[in-house]
């Protein structure tokens, strides 16, 4: 299947993406994840200023038929959440790597990025799922 993958982002096995600039990690869910979920109808956003650990569940994304847990790709403090998702959760379906971003995290330990996959590794990982 021709799933879209952003070349410069990092990825988790749970299909979150992360884009790190300076010490801020912007995260969301991948094209594969939004396609599997279908129409996103609700996003339970984390509290701003809350602390999260790497791979800790901190967001819930609901589609018409089911709810899915979303995990923090990096540990740190949640500095900003995408409030547009409250009224327009479909942004995740329309533009998962752009306007459908979910949260920004102030990264505590940059070394944790070694626990994530590159675009190429994620592409191979997706291939291994089918």
């Amino acid at each position, binding site marked *: 299947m021709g799933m879209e993958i952003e070349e410069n982002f990092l990825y988790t096995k749970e299909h979150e993406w992360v884009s790190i600039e300076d010490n801020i990690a912007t995260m969301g869910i991948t094209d594969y994840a939004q396609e599997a979920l*279908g*129409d996103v*109808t*609700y996003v*339970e956003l984390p509290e701003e200023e809350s602390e999260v650990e790497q791979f800790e569940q901190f967001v819930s994304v*609901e*589609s*018409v*038929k*089911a*709810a899915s847990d979303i995990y923090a790709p990096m540990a740190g403090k949640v500095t900003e959440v995408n409030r547009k998702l409250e009224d327009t*959760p479909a942004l995740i*379906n329309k533009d998962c790597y752009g306007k459908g971003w979910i949260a920004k995290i102030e990264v505590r330990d940059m070394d944790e990025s070694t626990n994530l996959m590159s675009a190429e590794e994620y592409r191979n990982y997706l291939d291994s799922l089918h």
Partner: protein
Amino acid sequence: MTVDTNLHNTPLADAHVALGAKMVGFGGWNMPLQYESILAEWEHNRKTASLFDCSHMGEFMIKGDAKESGLDRIVTQPITDMPLNSCRYGAMLNDNGGVIDDLIVYRKGPQDWMIVVNAANIEKNARHFRAHLNAGTYFEDASFKTAKLDLQGPQSRDVLKVLVPGIAKLSYYTFDQFQLSGIPCLISRTGYTGELGFEIYCPWEKCKEIWQTILTHATVKPTGLGVRDVLRVEMCYSLYGHELDETVSPLEAGLDKFIDGHKDFIGAKAVSARPVRRTIGYFTSTSRKSPRAGNRIFDAGNQEIGIVTSGTFSPALQAGIGIGFMDRHSKDAGIEIFFGDEKNKAAAIVAKRPFYKNGSLKS
């Protein structure tokens, strides 16, 4: 795509895959979940006309007098007074008053009946009929030679009358025998969506031809079981395995209207002897967060008062909606309740059925 070989296929399984459907197992059958987005399919069904493959459902043919055959004792609804070519919804119960299945009785002749049942229950239902129909009564499980297509939506009549002019005269919950492209079909004005619609029963081997003929109409789109569930929850229709099962009394499940209190059907005494401690209730989430089957229901004082049996996001209300068994004193419309678990609860308001009030069902 992986194919579960333990699942039955309808005559359209290949056609669904060719149309790009996501397939899922449902009630022992390999069925289309969705062809495009569920929200887009919802919009199409509520505004135009959508075609569902419901060939997985079961059809039993029975010949005999309603009372002498034993049929009248098996089903909860009155049938002796049914006009010819009418349908009537009801259920059949076990000796404890639990629901074996919900069903629709079609009266094809004075002594000629078709019973339509849920796919997952075909075998156990057939056993129940064979055990309780009187000797000499003709019974046939025609489920694997009778296909069913549902054409539903406000424009369904306009679409279908081009192919079958006679259907324009069908009133709600009636049926007749027709020819569609030269194929004999039984068509009823029934459905499970809350919209004007028709169920087309046809020979298994001719189903694909009828499916393709109807889909050539520009306004009709194929639609999967995913949206079918959203549509039925918006209408507060019960689904076996969710609101109904062998432990649930039809009075708890809100089927009172479909029970003939004057006849001695199987399970009648048990039903009237059973205390009704909980009943089915309906509620609307105060946010876009949707309740899910298995969520617990709490009152404003944090007392657990019930359990969610069905929940979904409602595109009509742009909010979560739920159906569940609730303490009978806590289900008056307007009361605030909460759904979820001990740690994570979301607010909802008890509602009156149906959630969706603008359907074209009886237009």
